[in-house]
């Protein structure tokens, strides 16, 4: 069947069962699934601490076919998912369903465990490195579910995703299970993606390489949600966990795009007292944040909040009084980790408050402007951030669809040509974020406004921005690089791209090789 943006979606798939097609960004009705709440008890004087994963697995009632979960705050330095899954293999567990909030190159050992039958399925918001390639080649027995940051807490809250054991990597924990993320050799800052696991999983295990004296306060996740604490040698490689510093690009093309994106925000009329903002940590995004900061300083504007993945630049804006607070669901660099521990206006939040569409109000809905990237964007403004122009998985849905839906002004920034491929195409290979939630595309050769937003277009024209139609940008790109060849989409379904409301916005089909 075809969904609301014309994507062919199978009625059901192995593992995921019946699929609900995407109906529109704000159309999917909330669903609930029957589930008994977990039984919990921790008698006074009881011991939660285990000195090894071996001891822990001897105690856990974990069975083959269970669902286990992990967060990705340790990013490409994470050793926890690998060590837990290896221990599960050693204990003879099979057919595990893995919910890992983000998958990186470091998770490559999972491929062998899939082949061995230890891992049966994967839900994740991002796929990078060898696991991404393995998914594209159809190594997993069931299609991988790619969810958004807001979609996961929705699925946990409504019972759709039922986690038996959550293994929460904890850069610091005490014997009672109080956890923080901003201390220790494996400090990663916010633990926001693990908060839903702590709330809803049957058993919550803190995995730590930094057992500190009780009480550890204030906790990110408190002891009343944590059932076991296991001490391990190391959570992973600190070099892969956070970058020392996130640097603003020096690439003149990216800087030009960033300056235009900041001008779009200025021209939109949203840059005023109480302004709220989110941007990524890559390429043009940080540079755009710097230009926005300069505008705010010049016009003496005090913003409300900045949201999302937090970097040193956002911390700097908070400290200069440009925002009243930071809402941090993920900390990208050392400075943001440090700030989270010391600045009371730098607030740790969970993914539910961040972006769950089926809550009583998530923060993305209060964003004035968000700046997002794209690997492709089509003439209907649908954005692909999951597959490359060759159809191979190499990216993340992450908070892209969530923030695009919530923000008043959604700006997509992209080089019109990437590796000699036009970024604007007739139809994106994989739709991740629906065009109805995207307002503007900013490239180095002009700015295109979604026709649904005529008022914004008039404002940008008045502000003398180089406004073009999106098909004009496509022609420009093709004039330079030629029209891209069509990618064959006839392979078996290897991944489902779930929209934040639980409907399926697109599928990824396998590629050979």
């Amino acid at each position, binding site marked *: 069947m075809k969904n609301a943006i014309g994507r062919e979606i199978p009625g059901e798939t192995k593992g995921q069962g019946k699929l609900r097609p995407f109906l529109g960004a704000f159309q999917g009705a909330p669903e609930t699934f029957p589930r008994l709440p977990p039984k919990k008890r921790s008698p006074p004087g009881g011991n939660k601490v285990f000195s090894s994963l071996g001891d822990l697995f001897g105690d856990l009632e974990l069975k083959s076919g269970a669902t286990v979960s992990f967060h990705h705050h340790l990013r490409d330095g994470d050793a926890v998912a690998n060590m837990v899954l290896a221990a599960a293999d050693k204990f003879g567990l099979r057919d595990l369903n893995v919910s890992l909030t983000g998958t990186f190159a470091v998770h490559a050992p999972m491929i062998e465990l899939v082949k061995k039958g230890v891992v049966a399925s994967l839900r994740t918001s991002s796929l990078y490195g060898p696991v991404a390639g393995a998914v594209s080649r159809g190594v997993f027995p069931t299609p991988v579910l790619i969810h958004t940051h807001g979609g996961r807490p929705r699925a946990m809250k409504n019972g759709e995703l039922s986690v038996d054991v959550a293994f929460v990597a904890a850069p610091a924990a005490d014997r009672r299970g109080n956890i923080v993320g901003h201390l220790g050799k494996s400090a990663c800052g916010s633990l926001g993606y693990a908060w839903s696991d702590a709330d809803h999983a049957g058993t919550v295990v803190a995995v730590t390489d930094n057992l500190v004296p009780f009480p550890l306060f204030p906790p990110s996740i408190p002891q009343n949600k944590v059932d076991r604490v296991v001490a391990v040698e190391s959570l992973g490689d600190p070099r892969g966990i956070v970058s020392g510093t996130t640097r603003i690009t*020096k690439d*003149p093309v990216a800087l*030009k795009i960033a300056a235009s994106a900041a001008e779009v925000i200025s021209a939109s009329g949203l840059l005023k007292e109480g302004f709220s903002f989110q941007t990524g940590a890559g390429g043009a995004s940080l540079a755009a944040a710097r230009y926005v900061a300069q505008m705010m300083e010049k016009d003496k504007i005090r913003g409300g909040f900045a949201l999302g993945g937090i970097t040193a630049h956002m911390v700097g804006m908070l400290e200069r009084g440009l925002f009243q607070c930071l809402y941090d669901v993920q900390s990208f660099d050392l400075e943001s980790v440090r700030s989270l521990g010391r600045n009371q206006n730098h607030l740790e939040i969970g993914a539910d408050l961040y972006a769950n569409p089926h809550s009583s109000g998530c923060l993305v809905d209060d964003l004035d402007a968000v700046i997002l990237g794209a690997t492709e964007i089509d003439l209907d403004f649908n954005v692909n951030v999951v597959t490359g122009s060759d159809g191979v998985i190499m990216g993340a849905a992450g908070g892209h669809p969530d923030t695009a839906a919530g923000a008043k002004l959604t700006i997509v920034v992209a080089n019109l040509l990437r590796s000699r491929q036009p970024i604007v195409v007739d139809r994106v290979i994989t739709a991740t974020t629906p065009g109805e939630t995207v307002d503007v595309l900013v490239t*180095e050769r002009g700015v295109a406004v979604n026709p649904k937003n005529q008022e914004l277009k008039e404002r940008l024209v008045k502000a*003398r*921005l180089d406004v073009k139609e999106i098909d004009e940008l496509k022609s420009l790109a093709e*004039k*330079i690089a030629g029209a891209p060849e069509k990618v064959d989409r006839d392979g078996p379904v290897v991944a489902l791209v779930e929209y934040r409301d639980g409907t399926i916005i697109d599928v990824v089909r396998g590629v050979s090789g």
Partner: protein
Amino acid sequence: MTARTRRSLLYVPGNNPGMLQTGGLFGADVVVLDLEDSVAPSEKDAARDLVCGALRRVDFGRAATCVRLNSLDTFAAADLKSLVPARPDLVLLPKTGCPGDVLELVGILERLESLEKKDRKPIGVMALIESPRGLAEINAIAASHPRLEALVLGAEDYAAMVGALRTKEGGEIALARSQLVNAAAAYGLESFDAVFTDAADDEGLAADTILARNLGFTGKSAVNPRQVKVINDLFSPSGEDVDWAGRVVRALRQAEKEGSGVASIGGKMVDAPVARRAERILRLAEKLGPGGGDGR
């Protein structure tokens, strides 16, 4: 951008397809596709092909296209043979040492252009002055041929050749700057200051650009696209400049109407050089439109 209103001249390596493709995006008034210093001798052929391809296919917007040739004693003739059919707006001759160099270049250009369609605009010439000899002969070079449109200072080579220590403050090139500005002004040419080589020092660039502007240069060279905006902004007339120029022109018209040979503003006489300066400011302001219009 038409001659006499050009503020910035951006060098782009001729052997870098990505940078050739994006060279026109940064608001530079002249984009110089470089075949000389940025290209190793073994890559000259390939770079020539790339530059010709870029001239034919890349949209440089309103920037004038220019190619920095190799010197006359190396590959300039071969460069021109490939380039003339691709029709850059200008060529920049490096190591211009005497008027004969300009004449030799023009001779090659005329021969090659005679093989092309006649309705095409002749390719303009800019001379890069980057040697003590070139500076010694600068007045004769400036006067050498009507196709010469601009003198461009190459400070790094010049300083090295006179044995000066190159500094950010630029005291060692003060004489070269002033002589070049004077020669250009004397013969109605544009004058472009040398590049400011530290692309990470925005404040240093601004100070260097203000110095060049105040000395009388009509524009400045840029080695990095990020420098273009600073140069354009500082070489663009301010609102006050435009008001002043408007008053000058109105006073001249009024004087003409009244049959008086002499116009004055606020008691000061408006003579021919002042009138020319005012006209250039108005031309530039008209080209740029309200708000400067760079890179849009």
